[in-house]
């Protein structure tokens, strides 16, 4: 028992309470970001108007505001900003889970073709009019997500596994499902529908409503809670499946459970906001940089970082060329690709 061990024990306690404070700080920053972002927009609303609407809606006494202004804040800006936060949180969570589980720093729902698969499923439902309403859209997206995921994993396993094989399989999957989506859209949709679908495919939060926020929020939160119960098991995958098994983890069960959660969250988010790329890839790395690789810390941090990031990206997307709107997926890609390059360079430096 050297003093070294003692110091180690003390830092551990400190860093745990520090984490609690940081997470609380993250929540405050997220709330503040949302509060600031909903005051930004092309419509001519004063900051006072915006908060008057919010306070009124939350049941407090507030100044009278016109119905139009009320609609802009409560039916457009707020649900949209909240959906942005949920999408950022959910996609970052999915990325972190996949990176830990597949031991692949480049894994995320977009790169591995799950988002593409979900898009195909959703487009199939939307354009061909199978079923009706938001539920069937999500169901279509989920079916597409699971099918594409299964296909990509099968292809990767068939190619012998390994980081690069999984990514290559993901590339193939993405191409296949993008092509299928284009085929469905071009062969069955009219011009107006096509434009709408294409915009949505790039990732767009413009259609956000409270139903989206509620469904996606509930699914993402449930996903986070499920993943948190498995955070230790997820840590066990650091040195691979065999190492996880020898640490007493039921490898197959944890994989099925967590990859299922990932597919479900991705499907819900894609059916609400389209395929937003690179959030799931890049933000877990940012979070890992902040709190290290332990999943019990990493997952909540990733979720907060993702939410804050997306809230601001969406604000950027709808103001830079206002009143014309840039699809949010375009902005995340513009930020994400250079970050992707940085990750690749870092991988090169570690032997």
């Amino acid at each position, binding site marked *: 028992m050297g003093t070294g*061990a003692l110091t180690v024990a003390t830092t*551990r306690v400190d860093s745990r309470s520090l984490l609690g404070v940081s997470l609380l700080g993250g929540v405050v920053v997220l709330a503040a970001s949302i509060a600031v972002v909903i005051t930004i927009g092309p419509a001519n609303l004063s900051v006072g108007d915006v908060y008057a609407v919010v306070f009124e809606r939350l049941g407090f006494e507030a100044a009278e505001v016109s119905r139009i202004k009320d609609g802009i804040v409560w039916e457009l800006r707020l649900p949209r900003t909240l959906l942005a936060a949920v999408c950022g949180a959910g996609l970052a969570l999915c990325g972190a889970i996949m990176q830990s589980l597949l031991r692949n720093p480049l894994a995320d729902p977009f790169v591995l073709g799950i988002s593409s698969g979900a898009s195909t499923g959703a487009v199939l439902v939307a354009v061909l009019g199978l079923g009706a309403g938001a539920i069937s859209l999500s169901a279509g997206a989920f079916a597409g997500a699971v099918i594409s995921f299964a296909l990509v994993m099968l292809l990767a396993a068939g190619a012998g596994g390994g980081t690069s094989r999984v990514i290559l399989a993901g590339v193939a999957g993405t191409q296949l499902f993008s092509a299928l989506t284009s085929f469905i859209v071009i062969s069955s949709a009219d011009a107006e529908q096509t434009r709408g679908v294409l915009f949505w495919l790039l990732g767009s939060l413009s259609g956000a409503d409270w139903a989206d926020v509620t469904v996606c929020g509930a699914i993402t939160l449930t996903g986070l809670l499920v993943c948190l119960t498995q955070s230790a098991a997820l840590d066990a995958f*650091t*040195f691979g499946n065999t190492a996880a098994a*020898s*640490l007493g983890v039921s490898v197959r069960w944890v994989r099925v459970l967590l990859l299922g959660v990932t597919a479900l969250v991705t499907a819900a988010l894609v059916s609400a906001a389209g395929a937003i790329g690179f959030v799931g890839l890049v933000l877990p790395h940012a979070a890992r940089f902040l709190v290290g690789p332990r999943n019990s810390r990493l997952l909540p941090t990733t979720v907060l970082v993702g939410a804050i990031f997306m809230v601001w990206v969406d604000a950027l997307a709808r103001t830079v060329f206002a009143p014309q709107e840039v699809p949010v997926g375009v902005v995340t890609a513009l930020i994400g690709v250079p970050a992707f390059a940085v990750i690749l360079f870092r991988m090169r430096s570690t032997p």
Partner: protein
Amino acid sequence: MTLRARNVGWSRGGHLVLDGVTIEPRRGETIGLLGPNGSGKSSLLRVLSGIAGPDSGRVLLDDTDITTLPRRQVARRVAMVDQHSDTEVDIAVLDVVRLGRIPHRGLFGGDDYADRGAVDRALDHTAMAPMANRLWHTLSGGERQRAQIARALAQEPDELLLDEPTNHLDIQHQLEILSLVAELPLTSYIALHDLNLAAMFCDRVLVLERGRVVADGTPAKVITTDMVEQVYSVRAGVTIDPATGYPTVTYRPRSVSPVPT
């Protein structure tokens, strides 16, 4: 309180990789598994760890078939250090060692005090405490191996399985790792290539050839010129080192005839 193999047979891809292997260890013994590449050393360790179930025969942990026990319960008793343990995660040594506490943890965390004690003891035992905050990719091969052994010790097992723990290490680190393992009060199974190291550190050695046990006993009894010739197809001289009493193997080229005197 031991991990035993009873007449274990295992096939993979149509090949019989283990064929009627039986081991009855004594508690606290350090057992060396010898044999050429593909003789079944790693397969035997996998089956003993309970990760893979044998096709015939049984692996018993305290008289219970290991495949019928919950994985977590096995992981509290049996720890394994694999041959190729690597990760791209920027994980600190401390966090690697903490992985060993996973089997002891419930759904809502574990006994923090016990966890901390076990982790600190494991770090001290392997002399990794000063490196607790170093990141994995900055460690040398020997340090990585020691970190993995510390992780295994943090599991507080009764049985330790090591697959060629001295691979890619220099002589000093090979000796260090093996004397560390040999001194532990655990029953250890070590797959080894180096016969001289096996002779130095193992209480008992078991020689495998094409999945069968062809010799089993003390190093002095098992490591002989005939065994090396027969199992490894290598000509060798085995002498007893008068300083230590261990058998020492020197290899000889096939074609050399004895030097005339």
